[in-house]
């Protein structure tokens, strides 16, 4: 039983990270109907931005409190990746709007390759380590929960709440949902559609940056190809939860995190990805729109 709870805690941590990334996929899909394959690399960039900030700050000021350090890393990473994603949308996706559906998809894959290669060239191909920032652990009987895990879950929960509030209760969120549902009508009501789409990319990138920073803190290394596997997992999470659905993305992320850690705990770790994707296939057979996804048909 303790073992199970332990794995649950691990899965929840991992799932939070996947969920944060998945939101970026699902939001962009919702608003412009495109899978932003470069989003995983935006997540990777977030990790690197955090790492670089860490190195800069520690080389100038010794003994910065850990909480402050994490905050600085988070904020700078969020700003940097937002700027990146905003630029990518501007130069790579916006000119293709109104083009055939496959065009932005291909560009996104290209963008993904560009980003990971850019980091490989500028930062080197080896794993970049970061010293353990937070190493406290708490014991509850046989269960060990680290402060890192708590931070990850709490930060995720707080961000998701803020995020949920923005999307559901603010004029900006309303404009986003309106743009998602009927772009032309939104414009007729005075919504600046291009700006709304840009903001969506920025928000997705900011959440991915948080995920990147957390991932870096949790595993202690950053690598140029970090964007790939977690990116694919998060994308899977978005599809599993129902692409276009925000709660679906979070749910999908948590589910994948849990399956991964439980499978690794009770079966062979080598097949954990197989388990994840098998679940995806299984769900899609019975519910092609994902768990919380809605059918495409609308009453007109």
């Amino acid at each position: 039983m303790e073992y199970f709870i332990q794995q649950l805690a691990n899965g929840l941590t991992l799932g939070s990270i996947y969920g944060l990334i998945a939101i970026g996929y699902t939001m962009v899909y919702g608003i412009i109907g495109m899978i932003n394959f470069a989003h995983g690399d935006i997540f990777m960039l977030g990790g690197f931005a955090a790492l670089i900030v860490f190195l800069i700050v520690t080389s100038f000021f010794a003994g910065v409190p850990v909480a402050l350090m994490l905050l600085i890393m988070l904020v700078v990473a969020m700003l940097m990746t937002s700027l990146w994603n905003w630029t990518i949308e501007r130069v790579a996706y916006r000119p293709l709007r109104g083009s055939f559906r496959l065009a932005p998809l291909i560009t996104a894959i290209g963008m993904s390759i560009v980003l990971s290669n850019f980091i490989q060239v500028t930062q080197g191909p080896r794993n970049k380590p970061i010293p353990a920032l937070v190493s406290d652990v708490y014991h509850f009987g046989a269960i060990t929960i680290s402060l890192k895990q708590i931070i990850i879950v709490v930060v995720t929960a707080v961000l998701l709440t803020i995020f949920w509030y923005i999307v559901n209760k603010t004029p900006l969120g309303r404009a986003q949902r309106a743009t998602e549902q009927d772009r032309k009508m939104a414009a007729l009501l005075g919504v600046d559609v291009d700006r709304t789409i840009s903001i969506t990319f920025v928000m997705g990138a900011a959440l991915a940056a948080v995920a990147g920073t957390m991932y870096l803190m949790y595993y202690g290394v950053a690598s140029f190809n970090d964007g790939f596997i977690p990116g694919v997992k998060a994308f899977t999470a978005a599809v599993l939860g129902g692409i276009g659905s925000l709660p679906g993305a979070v749910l999908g992320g948590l589910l994948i995190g849990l399956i991964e850690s439980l499978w690794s705990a009770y079966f062979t770790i080598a097949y954990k990805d197989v388990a994840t994707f098998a679940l995806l296939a299984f769900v899609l057979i019975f519910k092609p729109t994902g768990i919380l996804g809605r059918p495409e048909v609308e009453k007109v």
Partner: protein
Amino acid sequence: MADEALLKVQGVETYYGNIRALAGVDVEVHKGEIVSLIGANGAGKSTLMMTICGSPQARTGQVIFDGEDITKVPTHLIARRRIAQSPEGRRIFPRMTVLENLQMGANLDNLKYFKEDVEKIFTLFPRLKERQSQRGGTLSGGEQQMLSIGRALMARPKLLLLDEPSLGLAPLIVKGIFEAIKKLNQEEGLTVFLVEQNAFAALRLSDRAYVMVNGKVTMTGSGRELLANPEVRAAYLEGGRH
């Protein structure tokens, strides 16, 4: 009739790809008027409405609103100049509640007048009040039509464009909507430009009207003149009756 035209459409041609939908249209709407546009299916009426809003933009000709050329202004900035449209097909946001749909209409003022304006809409269309927390997509056609008009009114428009407000509605509701338009026009001086298939009701309501055929305005006159015109009667008023 005011001498300065609020909306002036001059020689506008609009294309969908290579297909010319509007072939040089001239229309004027003066402040405080109700002007209607009648014509058969595919004549280009809705295209004209959308061209006024810059979506699609006119390829040649000019759209002048309040003395300024808005032909090449992006759609959302045209909306911010207070041209509100209840477009063809109603275009309700299906996964937003009725109230949220109305909030979208009031976005231009950041919901500053939302409370008082929404009460007005609810007095105009009490059905919307009953359904305010229901999703737009679950409303009946008539309710969606009311919501679409209500949403346009929430923007406090200088010019209200209505594309077929009577489409798919029961005659009694149509009467109610037309009375509401008349009332807004008389009491608040709202300028209305509407497209209608229901030519009889539209002409009776309007100060002036235009008849459109194949992307061109072929006739214009006061509502009464057109009602009495034998060609108009034959084509749009008695055509279906035999």
